[in-house]
């Protein structure tokens, strides 16, 4: 029988209650905001990229459930210092693995919202500059 603690493991709750890299990022290279229309969860992602095309700083803002907000916080820790090309290529599986919990289809949408917004930020900027 599953317990509430299977989904709400210590590290998920820790990231939710004490999020890393949360807040605005003045001078961000890429920024985007999106919501999950099913539940209204909202995430904004900001990335700053240096001359060598590495992610030098990253922040998120948002409000929503523990899964989406913890996922956003954990994603920021995965991105910092990464070459932009690797950040862009980061797959769903990598984030889910980092979360370390098994998710139903509906809750998977919560978990992947931050990744979706991060990709959106990069894609929109690139589309605008071509």
């Amino acid at each position, binding site marked *: 029988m599953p317990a*509430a603690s299977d*989904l709400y493991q210590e590290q998920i*709750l820790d990231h939710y209650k004490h999020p890393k890299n949360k807040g605005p990022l003045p001078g961000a290279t890429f920024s985007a905001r999106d919501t999950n229309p099913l539940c209204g969860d909202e995430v904004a992602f900001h990335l700053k990229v240096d001359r060598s095309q590495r992610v030098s700083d990253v922040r998120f803002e948002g409000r929503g*459930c*523990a*899964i989406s907000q913890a996922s956003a916080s954990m994603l920021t820790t995965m991105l910092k210092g990464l070459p932009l090309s690797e950040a862009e290529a980061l797959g769903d599986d990598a984030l889910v693995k980092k979360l370390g919990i098994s998710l139903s289809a509906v*809750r998977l949408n919560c978990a992947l919202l931050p990744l979706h917004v991060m990709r959106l930020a990069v894609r929109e900027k690139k589309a605008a500059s071509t």
Partner: protein
Amino acid sequence: MAKPAKMLLNVPAIKADFPILQRKVRDRRLVYLDSAATSQKPKQVIDATTDFYSRYNANVHRAIYELGEEATREYEGAREKVAAFIGAKSPNEIVFTKSTTESLNLVAYGYGLKGKLQKGDEILGTVMEHHSNHVPWHFVKDHKGAVLKYVDVSDDGTLKMEQYDELLTKRTKIVTVALCSNVLGTINPVKEIAKRAHEVGAVCVVDAAQAAPHMPIDVQDLDADFLAFSGHKMLGPTGIGILHGKPEALEATEPLLGGGEMIREVHLGRASWNDVPYRFEGGTPNIAGAIGLGAAVDYLTNLGMESVRAHEMEITQYALDKIGRINGVTTYGPKDVKKKAGVLAFTIDNAHPHDVASILDVEGICIRSGHHCAQPLMERYDLPATARASFYVYNDLEDVDVLAAGIKKVQEVFA
């Protein structure tokens, strides 16, 4: 909060009628508290639909043979049962649709968009409507130039009736309102709203999706022009909805669907229409759905809608006392059960409603979380989402106790 020794309805006997309530979820008893989304089905309803498919499946209104006559008799019998259930004068005032949503779209399209409305005419709705009673009217605004206005809700979850009086003018042609809010549970004074609408020459459209399953409805007493509700929220199958209309209102409504059944004569390039209500039922209808709905009406009529309402008032009062008094829990909507149906929206400090629903799910408890298809209402209260428990005939006070224990677990996780 003393528990009454005996409830008004015989809930153990009712529970035994619902096969799904015998199953376990994650090794626990299923505690189903999401009937405002859809109700569970008693075996009488399941048997009625199965019986149609296994004994007399045939299309209605056309076949000469015995099976077809039986199918037509049962389908039209369901229409008569629904008419009696809400006090309609004639079964011809009952249109079968696929949902409350389709019923409301039929009125917006057939009466508003293609019917009598002129550019600049006003449609008066409320902030607490379900999306299905917002968006169809947006179409009328966009395509006909109608003007939309809205009556606000007070912080206590009731409509601002003095604002209704201010907004209601000779320009108002349609007033549309939920009889019961799907989030707050508020029971709106629709009889009074319809009366005042008629005084300025407007028609009154009522979304009764959350009311018809839970309280006695008498369309003669309410005196609204249109009233929409769904089968699946009142123990019936999905895919069957109802639109009640006064004869003159239905006569003034254009059909939404052209096709078989809804015509009198068809020639190349033109057609004349069948009588009301058949002109609104183009295509083969949901025959099994209507027959199942008829069985659901029988089931509720047997329980007695006065008893159903009294039972839900008792559970709602108990839930307001028990859940509403937990520290860190906020409930929304009226606190007086005379003004409130069995719907309890709530939030828990520091826990998002989705997380609340996930943790309760582990306990075998089904509740809803999110915006409940009522985003304008959520914006009004500046809430991104709430949790919502809703009650029906198969729920008892113990279900509320299980919910209260689940809420304590949520609070432990997010302490």
